[in-house]
């Protein structure tokens, strides 16, 4: 199996918008992940997701990938945007949709 950091990196690099979350957008397993996925859905564009609960290795190692200790984590164009609270801040200002629009162009 490829190194977990390489695997994470692949997901981040191969998807313009990806959220690492607990559960799935359809069946989230954490309030913060749930609301983060809802915000992304409301942007109206397709996005990728990775369920960290279904992959213990990613769950344990993602925090050191981008030096970010909590879930969910949103990456756009290979860069960490932030977690739920930063997404909410951006969402309220209309910046989240703009960012997603630009990335999925």
């Amino acid at each position, binding site marked *: 199996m490829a190194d977990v950091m390489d695997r994470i990196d692949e997901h981040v690099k191969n998807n313009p918008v990806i959220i690492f979350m607990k559960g799935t957008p359809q069946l989230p397993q954490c309030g913060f992940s749930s609301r983060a996925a809802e915000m992304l859905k409301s942007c109206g564009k397709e996005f990728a997701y990775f369920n960290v609960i279904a992959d213990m290795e990613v769950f344990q190692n993602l925090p050191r990938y981008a030096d970010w200790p909590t879930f969910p984590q949103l990456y756009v164009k290979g860069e960490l*945007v932030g977690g*739920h609270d930063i997404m909410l801040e951006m969402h309220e200002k209309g910046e989240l949709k703009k960012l997603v629009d630009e990335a999925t162009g």
Partner: protein
Amino acid sequence: MQQTITSKLEQALSPEHLEVINESHMHNVPEGSESHFKVVIVSDEFKGKMPVARHRLVNKALEQELKGAIHALALHTLTMEEWFEKGKAPESPPCEGGGKN
């Protein structure tokens, strides 16, 4: 835990305003748990920094706790200017027991 978070953040970021709220009761954890927290922190250390950088400052200060006891940390990081813009006045001082007379 609440006290630890408060003192570590005070030390690291000299906040103008700091709220550390235990929100564990809102989650599926045993009564009296100290696992889910919300932090509202106002500090000029955040000036000119993007949200990710601000959160990293807080995460760094609470590194040990985040590896262990803290399960969730909701973070609201503001500068003094943003704090006033948001229209939230500073909290009123407590009564301190004086009567009308």
